[in-house]
């Protein structure tokens, strides 16, 4: 077999995606969600805050695909617009968590000794709490705002990132290229930031994707029990909570649609994470 000319990156991507239909589907869905998040206001057929008592609690119809809620607001528009808030909270929380967790994990894994012991002890203490309940406690202590929802979600995700990064750094700490970098006179910071951590990034992409789903669930859970987001802001968790009272009398669309979209979003990130994991390192599969 002779070597033909180098394969273009686009062709490579196309090849990889063709082998993994499910991942491809998840990618598409992810894309759609991002579009909704960015352009929700523009795409929504109605104003999510516009109430109209005369058409309150009407079931799904051609005019209102997802029906209307108890104040006559269009459920579809609210669900669309809520994408930004739900994804936004999760993304910011995960980014914060990842950033801090990476720093802590890298120091912990690289330096070892007291640094490792202290950081591990802090992480272990965080893990001694059921995480959702810790988030509740944090929001209660810091104050009931959306910002604090983000901080609380970031804190409870911190142990995951710290531990994973630490484990990956430990594996690579004594690798040849690190030794070479050290001998070449690189300082600790440079070695950690420029040599070690970049190698950990692919694995972290998998964890981030899987964690995003969990972060969305957490944030929605907190808003379901009434923390953070206040009405009339459209957000999936709070919409499910508001719609819960109506399910018993059969008006299912208020709660089911936002809940289903929430589930779809989480599912999308989980599939994405699974797909990435298969691409990057199938050995991580359980």
């Amino acid at each position, binding site marked *: 077999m002779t070597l033909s000319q180098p394969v273009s990156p686009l062709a490579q991507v196309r090849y990889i995606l063709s082998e993994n239909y499910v991942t491809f589907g998840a990618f598409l869905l992810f894309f759609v969600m991002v579009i909704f998040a960015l352009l929700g206001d523009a795409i929504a057929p109605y104003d999510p805050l516009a109430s109209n008592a005369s058409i309150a609690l009407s079931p799904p119809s051609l005019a209102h695909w997802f029906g209307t809620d108890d104040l006559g607001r269009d459920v579809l528009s609210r669900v669309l617009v809520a994408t930004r808030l739900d994804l936004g909270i999760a993304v910011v929380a995960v980014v914060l968590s990842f950033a801090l967790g990476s720093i802590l994990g890298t120091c912990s894994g690289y330096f070892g000794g007291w640094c490792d012991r202290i950081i591990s*002890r802090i992480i*272990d*203490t*965080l*893990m*001694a*709490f*059921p*995480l*959702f*309940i*810790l988030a*509740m*406690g*944090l*929001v*209660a*202590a*810091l*104050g*009931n705002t959306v910002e604090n929802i983000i901080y609380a979600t970031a804190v409870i995700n911190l142990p995951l990132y710290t531990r994973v990064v630490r484990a990956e750094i430990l594996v690579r700490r004594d690798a040849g290229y690190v030794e070479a970098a050290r001998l070449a006179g690189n300082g600790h910071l440079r070695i950690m930031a420029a040599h070690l951590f970049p190698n950990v990034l692919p694995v972290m992409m998998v964890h981030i994707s899987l964690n995003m*789903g*969990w972060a969305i*669930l957490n944030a*929605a*859970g907190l808003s*379901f*029990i*009434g*923390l953070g987001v206040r009405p009339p802001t459209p957000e999936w*968790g709070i919409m*499910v*909570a508001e*719609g*819960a009272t109506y*399910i*018993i*009398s*059969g008006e*299912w669309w208020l*709660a*089911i649609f936002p*809940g*289903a979209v*929430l*589930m779809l979003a*989480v*599912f999308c990130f*989980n*599939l994405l994470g*699974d797909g990435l994991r298969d691409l990057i390192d199938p050995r991580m599969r*359980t």
Partner: protein
Amino acid sequence: MSRPSTLSIVIRRIIGALPSILGVIIVTFVLTRALPGDPAAYFAGPAASQEAIDQIRETLGLNRSLPEQFIIYVGELLRGDLGNSLTTGQTVVSDLLTRLPASLELTLAGLVFSLTLALPLGILAATRPGSWIDHGVRVLATAGVSLPTFFTGLLLIYVFYFLLGVAPAPLGRLAILYSPPDQLTGLFLVDSLLTGDLETFRAALGQLMLPAITLGLFALAPLARVTRAAMLSVLSSDFIRTARASGLAPHTILFGYAFRNALLPVVTTLGVVFSFLLGANVLVEKVFAWPGIGSYAVSALIASDYAAVQGFVLTMALLYVVLNLLIDLLYTVIDPRAGVES
């Protein structure tokens, strides 16, 4: 090589749990006393006058230095004093104790449901690779962790209560017509059985089913997945090959040899699953109006009943530490290697 006695293993594990307990106490201390803002105002509540706030500050010693406050705090904990609830007017401890059995019953029922399904599904999936059960379990594992607990609960209510009419109204542990059985353990199912009150038993069971299933579904996915993975791994191991070469009967190999070994990772996963379960408990209690400590905490949160919320967080954390300890001990029972410290 001699094996350490069971007692010494238990004691060592308990001692190992002490740092976690200390950590939990410190964190809750920081949450309650050491955050920005005026803790006294939090404890006094949103409707308190300035005098009331100052009064609280005195009583709780919030004007002392932090180390002093910590000692006072620990002292209070040891006395079982978690403060008073603004909304109920009772001590937080008595509130929690009254409501704890309801939550325990719910969590236990959920766990039983989930294990009863997860273990057989995992075993079947592992022994019939490529079959529809295997694919089903794998889909369940991915989809299951995507399910928002509160959504599943509402969906189940809609289908089984509203559409099919087979489930009772989700209004708590017992319909209004029934009175709770005599209090022996606080668990309605157990108590009604012990007192021979079958009618109440049936009623309580009916109310318990949907919430327990909702909670259990959440734990089902990770447990089924880990059972399947553990069984697959064990079934391809060397000692199973030896057992087959010795001509042992298939069910002896599957249950006596394979499953017991596969239990080890399952028990380890239980620890993580409990973390999720205790959190999901809060959501399920809200959906089904279940009078447990979860719904107590939720109402306290909304009402800014500070002491109640923090008491709840502390209690759940300590409960979780104890649960992890029990899981650890269970692990050492199953795996004789675990007691030997390297």
